[in-house]
């Protein structure tokens, strides 16, 4: 039941939020509501850990004639992502407290609506429900970017929408196709879809359709060009939701649906997918080196990081797959942290242009410390969250294809290059007119960053807690190709 509550609660909260008029009240309510949602997720976590590590499953018939049912559940992987989502949403909401947006009730209502859709994606055990939530998440994301975004937002959000929506349609076709191949009476239920009889040729086509949808969402090179533009034009909270949580939908989709449904095609096409992933890592890292806009730099770094995760997933090794799960969570934490820092800088100086900044560390030491810690997480320094994920990912990729690991490992070097370059230009050196009177982090901003820093070190120092949660399910997914 907790699973259903996790989906319904944000929906209810969202509807109430839309009706609150006062800005202050709406902020407080949204924060309190998202914290309540997080509490439910913690309860689900505790229940999962203390019980038999079994999936918390809920089933109710819906369109039974069409084989669509309300099938929700949380296995270890979904649970970690739901926990991450519900953890990050309050952080993101709190980070907006320093802003004053027009139509506040709609803004926060949409955030909570999006939370519902995201949790729904991670908890769906029915193909059609997965698709519905997948598309549902796009709507609030689009509105948040289109209504509260930058100057070029209409053109960019249109591009973003067309891009991801095109991918989704391919996924819909693939889902229906698999549905038609399920044993009669047909069903979209997860187990039925796994039992679908697919010829190798069909598997390849389905792989292609799914891959396109997920590759655009993640995004994998060369389907990524919507992303830097969208991040740059979105309001900070929008970028955080997109980069921190929403793009995990694509990675999650590969693990939950793509690999189990067409394992043979995955084995056949994995080297190709890994090649794209590895190219993306190097390509995006190299481009990141010369970016002038903080958000675009982080966007390209994100393409590189998720490229590594995608490569690892297709390596089909327990280390890489588990590393991918851990790194999905870590990436969410780190990138939200980076966007919060960028937002804090932009609000104070009015710019995100790296060349115009400098010397902030001497005026705002707390900001400098938090920035440095989050940066270390994203360049994967040992004892931070980034290292655990990247170590496992690279180890797994190495096991499958040593050369891929060597090339993908360049991210270790290149991430240091662009991240330290950014830090140096923004934080170090002498102050200028823009940064001379910059103020340090406020207590509210500290409150948004401290939970992230705690998670960076928790995952970095004692990852076993998170690995144990999801390891069983990772092993199960990897054992599927053999059974089928």
């Amino acid at each position: 039941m907790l699973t259903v509550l996790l989906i319904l609660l944000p929906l209810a909260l969202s509807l109430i939020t839309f009706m609150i008029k006062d800005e202050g009240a709406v902020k407080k309510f949204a924060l309190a509501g998202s914290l309540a949602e997080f509490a439910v997720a913690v309860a689900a976590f505790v229940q999962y850990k203390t019980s038999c590590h079994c999936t918390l499953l809920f089933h109710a018939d819906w369109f039974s004639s069409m084989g669509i049912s309300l099938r929700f559940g949380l296995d270890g992987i979904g649970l970690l992502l739901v926990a991450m989502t519900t953890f990050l949403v309050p952080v993101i909401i709190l980070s907006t407290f320093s802003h004053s947006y027009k139509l506040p009730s709609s803004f926060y209502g949409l955030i909570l609506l999006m939370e519902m859709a995201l949790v729904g994606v991670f908890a769906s055990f029915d193909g059609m429900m997965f698709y519905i939530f997948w598309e549902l998440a796009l709507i609030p994301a689009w509105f948040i970017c289109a209504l509260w975004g930058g100057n070029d937002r209409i053109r960019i959000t249109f591009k973003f929408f067309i891009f991801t929506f095109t991918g989704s349609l391919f996924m819909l076709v693939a889902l229906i196709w698999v549905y038609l191949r399920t044993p009669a009476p047909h069903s979209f239920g997860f187990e039925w879809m796994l039992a679908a009889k697919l010829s190798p040729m069909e598997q390849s086509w389905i792989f292609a359709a799914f891959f396109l949808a997920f590759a655009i969402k993640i995004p994998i090179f060369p389907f990524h060009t919507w992303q830097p533009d969208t991040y740059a034009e979105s309001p900070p909270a929008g970028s955080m939701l997109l980069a921190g949580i929403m793009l995990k939908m694509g990675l999650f989709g590969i693990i939950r649906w793509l690999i189990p449904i067409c394992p043979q095609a995955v084995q056949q096409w994995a080297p190709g997918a890994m090649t794209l992933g590895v190219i993306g890592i190097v390509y995006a890292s190299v481009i990141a080196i010369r970016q002038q806009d903080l958000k675009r730099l982080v966007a390209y770094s994100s393409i590189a990081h998720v490229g590594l995760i995608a490569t690892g997933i297709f390596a089909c090794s327990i280390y890489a797959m588990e590393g991918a799960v851990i790194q999905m969570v870590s990436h969410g934490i780190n990138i939200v942290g980076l966007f919060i820092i960028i937002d804090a800088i932009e609000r104070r100086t009015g710019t995100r242009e790296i060349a115009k900044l400098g010397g902030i560390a001497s005026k705002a030491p707390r900001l400098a410390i938090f920035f440095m810690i989050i940066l270390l997480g994203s360049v994967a320094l040992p004892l931070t969250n980034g290292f655990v994920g990247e170590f496992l990912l690279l180890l797994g990729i190495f096991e499958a294809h040593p050369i891929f690991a060597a090339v993908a490992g360049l991210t270790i070097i290149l991430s240091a290059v662009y991240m330290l370059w950014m830090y140096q230009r923004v934080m170090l050196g002498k102050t200028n007119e823009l940064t001379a009177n910059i103020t340090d982090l406020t207590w509210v901003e500290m409150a948004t960053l401290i939970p992230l820093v705690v998670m960076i070190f928790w995952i970095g120092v004692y990852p076993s807690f998170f690995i144990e949660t999801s390891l069983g399910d990772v092993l199960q997914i990897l054992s599927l190709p053999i059974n089928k």
Partner: protein
Amino acid sequence: MIAILILIPLLPLLGFLILGMGFRIIPRKITAIIAPCTILISFILTVFVFYNHICLPASPPYYIFPWIHLGPLKIDFAFLIDPLSILMMLIVTGVGFLIHVYSVGYMKDDPGFNRFFAYMNLFIFFMLILIMGASYPIMFIGWEGVGLCSYLLIGFWFKNHDYNNAAKKAFIMNRIGDLGFLLGMFLLYTTFNSLDYREIFAQAKVMTAGNTTLVAITLLLFVGAIGKSAQIPLYTWLPDAMAGPTPVSALIHAATMVTAGVYMIARSNILYMLSPLTMEVIGVTALVTALFAASIAIFQNDIKKILAYSTISQLGYMFVALSVGAFTGAMFHLATHAFFKALLFLGAGSVIHALGGEQNIRKMGGLRKTLPKTYWTFLIATLAIAGIPPLSGFFSKDEILAGVFESNTSVWIILVIVALMTAFYMFRLLYLTFFNSFRGTEEQRHHLHESPAIMTIPLMLLAILAAIGGLLNIPELFGGSSRLSGFLAPVFADAVAIQQRNTPLTYATEWILMGVTLSLVLIIIAWSYQKFVKQNKGLQPDDAPRPLAVKLIIQKYYIDEIYDMLISRPVLQLSKMLHDVVEVRLIDRAVNGLGTLVVWTGKTVRYVQTGNVGFYMFIMVIGIILILFFNILI
């Protein structure tokens, strides 16, 4: 016991946390107590561990808690306490403590006092983790952690962009090495199914020498060592790292961190012993590095840069020792080098302090009278590094030279040449700095002063160590008992057993070798005295006419410029090209083209929607016919 072992790295970490969190409110006096005291207690505990170990040698890895457990992969926080790690712990905490005390005086007026000591404590923590870890990943935590601290401390004065660039360069070059280390670990794991030292070494012991996988592993790990220990081709960060405060140069870039590569190879001695090819690669790399860096040092005029190139050269010495399997010799030289090189840097710091920041030795001179304590301690260190008996450097260098002579005479000759160059540039430095008359400004002369006791006492203590450090391992030749060799023997036992023993040198040969080297060194010292003190040479300005070869060396063989041309700029251009051409013109345009196509299709197909029902019916019928037709076909 385990509590003590945990406390040893934990205390510096606590120091870091306290100073880091309260860097704005903690008064300097408290910092000046907290920071050195945490290291002092760690040192005392290490001494305790050391005595305990002598009484009870066999100690299993001390397990603390699991780090990454995933199926067969089991990485624990566990410490391996054996003679090798104890030796390193003693050096790191002992020398580290003295440098902390010195820093209290040196950094007295710096606004970033607390931040400085927070970083220094963090460094000691990571260095101890590097040494004490019982597996490669734990070593890697320290390995990358010290790199971070090095980055933070090189760029300590972060308002200066050159310093920041130096810091960034150090971190990135280290990371290049770290990628090699990581890949080496992966190959270790896929080969041995473990990353724990003991399990790996136990399995490796029975493998045949020259095994390709072992060669690949050791080469990859050596790439890590190249980065961390500043060997060719990844050495250029170390001279630049002199941008950091001088105590940092002493602690991190001379005594401890840069020796991590030597420690790592000594730790993996079995793997390396079984990979003759790797040993040859190490030998050649290190020999070239030693010679190359020494040649640059001869023509440098920045007191810290000379010492930096000297460090690179001496590290090359240690790696040459490793490459011929003289592990004890390398570790012995590591220890004595930590003493005298830390002393040289601290002495240089004292000079720089007295001259208000001047680092050019051509603008010094005659400091012997005004800075007597600094002078005497510096002299001892110079004699030690030049290899004058009975100072520590003599014994450690002699052990390496003897070990090398056993296996390869031509390598020995090159090492002797390096030793002569070392004596030359060190005495050039000494003479130009401390002899003749002062060449600085009137204002500097007015302010010349000996450093306060808090700085000179560490100098004196290090001078004692630099002088008598040789006692650690007096060879039998001098009636000693090679204590250090005996102490470290269990660590290297397996490797030594594999090694094909050359016939040990006779005492007569050893005496001759030693006599030849020593007399040549003495001649060099006398000659440089003649040149720099009597004839007062070596003060030409940079643009004075010189032979082309000398100009080339003065410009450090243009290596930085070459790297810039071959790597940095192409990468930046590639970045621009990928973004402007591939990203914007190719991919994005293709995507937008697709969008335009969709809009165009929409506009065109729109005309089909006429609203005429008859037309729709007609299309429908055509459609049905087509479907039926295709069904028949299939």
